[in-house]
């Protein structure tokens, strides 16, 4: 991990209010692994950096995909190519080793880190991606380019299959043959994915989200209740995660 000023190489709006920003990151891009995140300073007037998962890293360049949620992400969405970004990272633990057949299950803004995993994993990947509606679908073509199969669901049925990721995920698991599930998305979705993974006895790693302070493990703000080795404890999402074994998270 290190802090560096990075030159922005691209800023693209993928969907309404969802942006993909790429920047030169040198060594940081080389050490980035799927599931890790960067902590980005969003202007001088905001005290807290914004933790954003890495959507891709290649050739010394890194990409983050984020939704405008407030002042900080709005500021970030307005950065132009050629401008500079203060980036701390890469931080946290990623999805780890992936082999065989992997199921990548993403909900909304949980999809971007899974794309990085799907693109670089030495594995055959099936992606199941859920979104609120057709207008919010992102990165579908990119997933199709690197996955064996891609299933898309929308809550309102305006595109893909109607409903949540649970139905296709359940059907795929029943079909069998998967070695690992990796997942990122809203907490209720992760809870459902973890439950399905446990019932089909497939190892599952989930990427959690929590409001963060320092991003490096010092401030203990982004706590998450886990049971490691049987004992209840508060883990740090930034340092001990953001990717955890689903079995050790206190759902």
């Amino acid at each position: 991990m290190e802090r560096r000023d990075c030159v922005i190489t691209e800023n693209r709006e993928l969907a309404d209010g969802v942006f993909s920003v790429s920047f030169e990151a040198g060594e940081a891009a080389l050490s980035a692994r799927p599931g890790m995140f960067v902590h980005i300073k969003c202007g001088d007037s905001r005290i807290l950096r914004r933790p954003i998962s890495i959507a891709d890293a290649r050739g010394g360049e890194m990409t983050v995909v984020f939704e405008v949620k407030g002042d900080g992400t709005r500021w970030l969405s307005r950065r132009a190519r050629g401008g500079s970004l203060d980036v701390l990272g890469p931080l946290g633990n990623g999805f780890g080793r992936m082999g065989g057949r992997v199921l990548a299950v993403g909900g909304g803004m949980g999809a971007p880190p899974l794309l990085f995993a799907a693109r670089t994993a030495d594995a055959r990947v099936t992606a199941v991606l859920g979104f609120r509606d057709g207008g919010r679908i992102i990165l579908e073509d990119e997933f199709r380019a690197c996955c064996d199969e891609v299933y898309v669901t929308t809550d309102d049925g305006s595109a893909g299959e109607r409903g949540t990721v649970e139905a296709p995920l359940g059907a795929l698991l029943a079909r069998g043959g998967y070695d690992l599930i990796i997942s990122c998305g809203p907490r209720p979705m992760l809870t459902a994915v973890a439950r399905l993974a446990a019932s089909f006895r497939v190892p599952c790693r989930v990427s959690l989200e929590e409001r963060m302070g320092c991003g490096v493990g010092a401030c203990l703000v982004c706590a998450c209740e886990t049971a490691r080795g049987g004992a209840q404890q508060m883990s740090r999402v930034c340092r001990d995660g953001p990717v955890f074994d689903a079995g050790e998270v206190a759902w």
Partner: protein
Amino acid sequence: MTADMSVTFAGVRFRNPIVAASGTFGFGREYGELYDISALGGVCVKGLTARARLGNPTPRIAETPMGMLNSVGLQNPGVDAFIANELPDLRRLGVVVIANISGNTASEYGEMAEKLSVARVDMVEVNVSCPNVKRGGMMFGTSPDGVAEVTREVKRRSGVPVMVKLSPNVTDIAEIARAAEDAGADALSLINTIVGMRIDVNTRRPVLRMNTGGLSGPAILPVAVRMVWQVARAVQTPVMGMGGVSRWEDAAEMMLAGASLVGVGTANFSDPHAMTEIIAGLEKYANERGVGRVGELTGGVMEY
């Protein structure tokens, strides 16, 4: 001319006056991966309690204009685990170690101070000002009698200098400072965070799960400078000033107000290298102004 940046504070020698504030720096491991923390004056470790604490439910943090609220609730592994698992590595880094302690009772504070003295920390910082726990903490720090009771007990059992960390959530901080000094405190540190609250207008829910939390960051700097100034005039005891310091100018301001050491906390989150930049800036300022010893800045404000 090269200024002497070292400061002797309550009998302890600090390489320079810049100290990591408790709760923002863990036990030094994480920032130690980013830079050599022996460059710092010292480190106040994350607040310790007699037994391990899991802390408060999340969300524990909220951003505010030029600041932030936190409500971590003293999550820590407990004093024994700190001594066994964290202190040896922190010692090896070669930085002054100040152990921050919180208790439910005065005797609990005393017991911790004794254990930590035996384990050879350089100093204890008595936290009577944590706003995020139900018992102990600020309950002691907001009355002169409470502060005096805890200070006396810690002094009785501590083998190392005792610094009492004061709460800004009081009517007259100078009165509290005098009570700590009269009870034997070797030093004072101030300010802890200011109690604050934010509400999400869409959900009508407080942003923090505990409803309220402690405000820190540049937003509180003027309050901290004022309180350091008031306290430094009221007592003989040396003062570590903190609250919103994020640039070397802020550190110089804190010293001019009367601080001998300057704590830096929230600024570490914005810029993990904030402290080393503050040290470099302060040294340059001292050199350019012909200040022989950085300690000459302490109390140097020319009041009207």
